[in-house]
């Protein structure tokens, strides 16, 4: 069975149906891209998977490693290895980045019955991860995302991912707003984790990210449904022709 099995998932926000029967199967170790027009429900899917409040799931199921994902609290989802890199990372004034990360790391470790790590060891790991990501140590001292530029926020998400080592990462437009160098850093961050025990859903609008993170599969989400799935070449052809044809096809 795949690591992530989404079947007939339908969800609404404030009475407005957004997801209308999503089917998606992500085998362990694979990276899939999700593309689709603005407002098609990509972030909604990411939030529903991560357990954000305010969405009501009306139909369908989501299994993560065979477990009912939708029955878990957001923190339990993180503990089993789900990580969402937010499209809009949240600022936490008054919460230091280093403390935040160590708290998160130890919460996850506790939930997995692993020993907590102390401040010294954490700093060592954090510094090493920052170095791999060509990021400045100074960001550990700052408050979480407060006053970060758009690109710094996205990189901070990848930094968190690097420390938390999820089994499944959902990257929601982590590439938008990044300059070319930062894009490579983010891609390297993902590629460094790639392997049998790491899977990812990469939500993006642009082929350029997929040049660096070559997906095993590409899905197109439109009006709350996956309307097309294919290999990496699907993203290339979309780059040429846009979504119009696909969307019309799906509606027909």
């Amino acid at each position, binding site marked *: 069975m795949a690591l992530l099995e989404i079947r007939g998932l339908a969800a609404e926000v404030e009475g407005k149906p957004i997801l209308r029967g999503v089917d998606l199967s992500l085998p362990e170790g694979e990276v899939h891209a999700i593309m689709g027009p603005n407002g098609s429900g990509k972030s909604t899917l990411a939030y529903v998977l991560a357990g954000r409040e305010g969405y009501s799931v009306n139909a369908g199921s989501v299994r993560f490693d065979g477990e009912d994902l939708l029955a878990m609290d957001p*923190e339990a989802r993180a503990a089993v290895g789900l990580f969402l890199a937010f499209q809009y990372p949240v600022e936490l004034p008054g919460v230091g980045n280093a403390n935040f990360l160590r708290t*998160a790391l130890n919460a996850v470790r506790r939930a997995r019955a692993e020993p907590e790590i102390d401040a010294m060891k954490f700093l060592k790991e954090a510094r090493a991860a920052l170095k791999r990501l060509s990021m400045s140590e100074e960001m550990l001292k700052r408050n979480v995302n407060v006053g970060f530029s758009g690109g710094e926020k996205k990189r901070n998400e990848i930094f*968190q991912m690097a420390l938390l080592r999820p089994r499944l990462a959902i990257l929601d437009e982590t590439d938008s707003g990044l300059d070319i160098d930062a894009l490579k850093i983010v891609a390297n961050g993902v590629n460094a984790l790639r392997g049998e025990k790491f899977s990812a859903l990469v939500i993006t609008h642009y082929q350029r990210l997929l040049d660096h993170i070559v997906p095993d599969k590409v899905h197109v989400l439109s009006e709350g449904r996956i309307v097309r799935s294919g290999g990496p070449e699907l993203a290339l052809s979309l780059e040429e022709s846009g979504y119009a044809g696909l969307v019309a096809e799906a509606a027909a």
Partner: protein
Amino acid sequence: MSAALRQTGENFSARYQGLAPRLPGPPDLRRRAAAWFDRHGLPDTRDESWRFTSLRPLAGIVFSRAEDQDDTAPSLLARLPPTEAPLLVFAQGRMRADLSRFPAGGQAGLSVASFANEPSFGNVPESETEPLSALNTMLAEDGARIAVAPSADAGTLVLLHLASGHAEHPPAFHPRHQIRLGAGARLTLIEIALGTSVYLHNPLTEVVLAEQAELLHLRLQDESAAAFHLASLHVALGPGSAYESVALVRGARIARSELTAAIVGEGARFALHAAQILGGEQLADITTVVRHLAPGASSRQSIRNVLTERAHGVFQGRIAVDRIAQKTDGYQMNKALLLSEEAQINSKPELEIFADDVKCSHGATVGALDPNQLFYLQSRGVPKAEARAILVAAFLGETLEAIPHSWGRSVLEGAVQSWWKDRPL
């Protein structure tokens, strides 16, 4: 006013009548305070400055003079985290030399006496509008008289107020404290109030800072949840002096902390960072009056309220800038975090400015925890209750993090942390 509340006030007057001949110090001031209190009694919500703070829960309670009956002071003392600093202990409003601790030969530059032995009412203005001061003046029997010699750095002094209450016969005590720093003197004063059961703690503290003196005043009000804490603090700031206070209010059924600062010296600095963390039926009120009576001085007041269940927070802050107080820099901010639907906050800022070249600002915010922030933390694996605690700590952060005294900071931070343990969310 309800008849029952009037009765509670009349009991204090009667107690004064009975005790008057035996009370220490010059009788005139007491007599005037008692006459005023006789006429007005305890304040009620028709009094403008008590609009938000009702003393109704005191109604019908007959407070008795605090005796040294069943003394739980030593066990309360054990709650204090260990410290090497000199310790001055009061229990039931009386100085307890047996529980206090000073280095052999005393602390250089520091002198400590008791009001009982050396009574003096200091220079607190006899205000007709402050019933808490009148009540204290009328009934004060003991208190701390702390002085730091000019130019001396007296280090740290811990002033502990312990109270053993009683549900049927609650005691009341009215200690009168005086803290004087000579020119250029320095002191860190850490005040902690702890208690059990029902009582009324009605302290009046006078702080006088001579030229260039600096006082760091850390306060933890952790009275019993059934107790009443009605305190007034009067601070006089000389030229170039600095008064900095960080105060955490988490105890008492009803707490009112009045603070009057008279900035009489040019270029003095006044700062109050206070936090009230309240739950249950608690009501806590911080009422300040900061008078800028000299030019070039600054005052900063930053108040944080964390309120849950049916708790009620009040902040009333007045900044009064005299005609001669040019170049005054005054700032006041009251922020409240409401963790439940029933919690409430009242905020009443007042600026009275008679000088033309001043910078004064005030503001207030009220909000709940941000669900996006909570979700962000949870999505990183942090359990909801811990996520809430982190966000509340962040809200209070500025207040406590900046405390330039490690033991004092740990005491206040510990009090915030244990608040969560008692109150799982």
